[in-house]
């Protein structure tokens, strides 16, 4: 079986202005969304706060839960269904984090037990993150991404050329920004596992980009006289089959994860799904074309 017939010659570089325009548009959409939402929708990992995951024995409503929480002044907390409908699981999120021993999750547990009976509710998970820790984690998350990019920049400069490293890092930044933007557009919470997902996307997309670069390096050695643009185009075409296949196998598992992984993993898989698609796109349409555009300008 072959998805991409040998000898395929698509002029990827010829449509690079169009590709750059498309990328710019998507990036702009994400940034506009982030601005309209007043920043990223940080989960409690980064914003601080208290989160309680409760499983009820009997079906209940978000409104009923809120009414019950009103007695301890938490009626303004965020209550949302979690997981599938039949599971009767809800997330209760309160902005406040209380650092003394009169902890909020204990109060929530007590109030709900009063309303639903002691065996009617099960507290499955509670998380409290103080504002100080939230800030620390935010800093660490950004640093992690920056250090990863620097490490990659150095490695590619060593293995290829500096200009290739720049192209790769631009492609990666492109992927990260679009994924973060997609999170904002879908109004999903930005949490610690999402940072892990983004770093994975960096690793993955880079994988793709390196394969193409590797082929360019090889083809350039073989035919020194050919124009750079032509070498680049044939290299992208030659690796196209592999690019699509790997994206496909990775996508298969990520989609499975998205469907069967359950609540916590759900958003993580969403980030990976976006990232794999964007990463594949960028290794074809961004990473190499940007090098060409850069060199022609000079």
């Amino acid at each position, binding site marked *: 079986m072959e998805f991409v017939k040998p000898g395929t010659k698509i002029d990827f570089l010829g449509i690079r202005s169009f590709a750059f325009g498309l990328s710019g548009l998507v990036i702009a959409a994400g940034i506009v969304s982030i601005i309209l939402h007043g920043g990223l929708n940080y989960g409690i990992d980064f914003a601080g706060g208290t989160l309680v995951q409760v499983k009820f024995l009997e079906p209940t409503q978000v409104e009923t839960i809120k009414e019950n929480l009103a007695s301890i002044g938490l009626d303004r907390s965020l209550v949302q269904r979690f997981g599938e409908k039949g599971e009767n699981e809800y997330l209760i999120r309160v902005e406040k984090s209380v650092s003394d021993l009169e902890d909020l*999750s204990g109060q929530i547990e007590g109030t709900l037990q009063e309303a639903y009976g002691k065996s009617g509710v099960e507290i499955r998970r509670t998380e409290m993150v*103080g504002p100080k820790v939230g800030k620390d984690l935010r800093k660490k998350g950004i640093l992690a991404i920056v250090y*990863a990019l620097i490490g990659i920049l150095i490695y590619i400069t060593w293995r290829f050329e500096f200009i290739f490293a720049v192209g790769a890092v631009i492609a990666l930044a492109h992927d990260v920004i679009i994924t973060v933007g997609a999170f904002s557009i879908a109004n999903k919470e930005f949490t610690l596992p999402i940072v892990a997902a983004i770093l994975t996307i960096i*690793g993955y997309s880079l994988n793709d980009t390196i394969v193409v670069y590797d082929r360019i390096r090889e083809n350039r050695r073989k035919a020194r006289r050919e124009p750079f643009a032509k070498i680049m185009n044939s290299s992208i075409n030659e690796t196209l089959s592999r690019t699509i296949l790997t994206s496909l196998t990775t996508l298969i598992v990520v989609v499975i994860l998205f469907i*069967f992984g359950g609540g*916590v993993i759900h958003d993580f898989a969403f980030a990976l799904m976006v990232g794999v698609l964007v990463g594949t796109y960028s290794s074809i349409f961004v990473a190499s074309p940007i090098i060409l555009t850069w060199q022609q300008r000079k």
Partner: protein
Amino acid sequence: MSRNLRWKLLLIIFITAVALIYLVPSVVGKIPGLLGRILPQDKIHLGLDLQGGMHLVLEVEAQKAVESYMERIKGDLKDDLKRKRIYAPIIERINGDQLSLEVLGEKEKFDEFIEDNYPVLIEIAAEDRGKYHKVILGIEKKQADFLKRYAVDQALETIRNRVDQFGVAEPDISPQGSDRILIQLPGIKDPQRALRLIGRTALLEFKLVDDEHSLQEALKGRVPEGDIILYQRRENQETGRVSKVPFLLKEKTLMTGEVLKDARVQFGDLNEPYVTLELDPRGAKMFDRITGQNVKKRLAIILDNNVYSAPEIRERISGGRAQITGIFSLDEARDLVIVLRAGALPAPVKILENRSVGPSLGKDLIDKGVKSIIIGGILVVLFMVTYYKISGAIADLALILNLILIMGALAGLRATLTLPGIAGIILTIGMAVDANVLIFERIREELRLGKTPRAAIDGGYSKAFLTIMDANVTTLIAAVVLFQFGTGPVKGFAVTLSIGIVASLFTALFVSRIVFEVILAKRKLKRVSI
């Protein structure tokens, strides 16, 4: 088959066998008898998010230790100055850790006295105001730093003791940064109770009740000099309503929990629990003196600023025993004994982060994770066979081996498997086939150029090698950064991803190659099924 090839095959079998042996405890459970003792016994260690438990980050408010030290100095200084006839009628603690004094008379005499007797104090400001000198004293930075460091060390030790007595299997209590403590308690059933036990300061104090002044007047805001008001918290067992009873106490602390030797739960006539305290010899002597000097007065027993009881001293007590009564449940009495035995925290702690996961949630997550791995794995395996035929089956073999190696390495390295870690394994499935895809595409290219099967396979592997290395090393860079910066669950993800990358390099570059070699050695291939 060449000798070289046979050795390589043996190596693969050996590595697979080792991985499988490490997996035995996780899959089958403990094996009885001699065999069980020879084989490794570590199961794959599950993270708190998967097995349930509590993850706490506390901050020791070390500055408070410095402040209470200055508070003690203030008391001593007052007495000493009086004895030396240096008149400083007003001494106050200001800005947390400074003392403000109004010194009457000769300032030189005062300075000399401080220098000789309180070398840790330094003069921050002094002002001649005619009638008196206004002096601000601070604490030497070295001493303050020492106190802070000591407070954190001591808090760590105390919390360790409390957790040990509470009885948690495999707790992990470690310092983090300069003033933080990380506590991991796997499988804990009642996180609320554990939190109260760990986080409370448990400062036990004995103070006299001031019966000479009116409590009513004091409550109106006219608290007599040297007195304080503290409350007794009473909870009605039936209605759960909390009431507070005020007490007017002498501020001076006569004795603290430092002199405690042991504490025990006892039961009274109505089977109500109470706590008996046994004092060490120094404490017994102190208690003997205190009770002897204050017969007919009431002695309040205070824990963390909450008055537990204030019985009247009927006679001198010399046995070194005291008791705390008060209305509490058996659990409360037991926890009280634990904190009293372990001693007080030198400074209060603040909870920065608290994550608890119930055991049922973890089981759910594992089930879903395993289900995803199986479904995703099967789909990828089927896809590879459809697309690459027999070669695809070889890649599948490498993939399955890859999974076995990852799990075996997790058990062998005693790494922790977390929920994102499971996600990492699933992702590895997707990416592990990538190396084989790269090789197979190369082999196809070589075949198209009209090369023989042997040459095409050799060419495919050697040309893809560098690409695969470059691609994986860069992913590994991301994984290592993740490990450095991540906490708990994210670290788990980095671990499985890194192991997965290394394992897939081995299976794709080495194992699948050997399988091809074996096939090539066995028969003369006319064409490659790819």
